[in-house]
């Protein structure tokens, strides 16, 4: 679990600055395989969510128009050292992954 997600959170006062990178092909369904010439099926993350100590802080609803290996940066207030930040994604094929990191 968590092998596809890299997350870094920097605390400044009570504000956490979060940078997150997910390894995912984000296939549009319009791309042809360069070798076989066949259409590569649509395969993309649908929802990526961030939660602090189990309380949701940001939800990213994605289409195929989010770039391959999605990257997000955002920040939230009310964070403290020792808080648990979790990141979870789900894709259109029902696959998912999650990771948890401790702030501080």
């Amino acid at each position, binding site marked *: 679990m968590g092998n596809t997600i890299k997350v870094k959170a920097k605390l400044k006062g009570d*504000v956490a600055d979060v940078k997150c990178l997910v390894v995912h092909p*984000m296939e*549009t369904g*319009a*791309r*042809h395989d*360069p070798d076989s010439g066949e259409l*590569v099926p649509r395969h993309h993350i*649908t*929802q990526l*969510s961030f*939660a602090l100590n*189990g*309380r*949701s*802080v*940001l*939800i*990213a*609803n*994605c*289409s*195929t*128009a*989010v*770039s*391959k290996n*999605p*990257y*997000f*940066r*955002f*920040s*939230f*207030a*009310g964070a403290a050292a020792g808080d648990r930040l979790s990141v979870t994604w*789900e894709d259109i094929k029902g696959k998912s992954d999650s990771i948890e990191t401790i702030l501080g």
Partner: protein
Amino acid sequence: MRIRRTMILETGLAVLALVGMPGMLRAASWPKKAFEWAAAKDALVSLYGTDTTSPSDRIELSAPLVAENGAIVPISIQTTLEGVRSISIVVEKNPRPLAATFEFLEGTIPAIDCRIKMAESSPVMVVVQTPAGLFSSVKKVTVTVGGCGQAHSG
């Protein structure tokens, strides 16, 4: 027996998760329909019930004037509007214009950086949902090589 115990434990955890995470419950499910529309207008109506937005100079949208690679177009959004519930990115000329919609929960600063794909040159519109209505900001991005796959055949 071991399996049953695991199941009971998991069910218990699931119930605890539902009770203990009001933030999670507020989260809507993935808006599948909104992402399917071929017209930006329809995607916005599906998401917000209307496509009427007020242009706002309190939204700062950063996007490249010219994107050499439509597969990776960096977008940066921040706003001083209050009570932001969601921010959506709409690429008018993409086959399916709604690229992403971000839900902001209490305490989260209404700003987001991400990277999107653009099939061709297009206006990029950001829609910010607040209790006072929908606000928007638009920037035109010129794309040299499209990022939705078709360009590979050429």
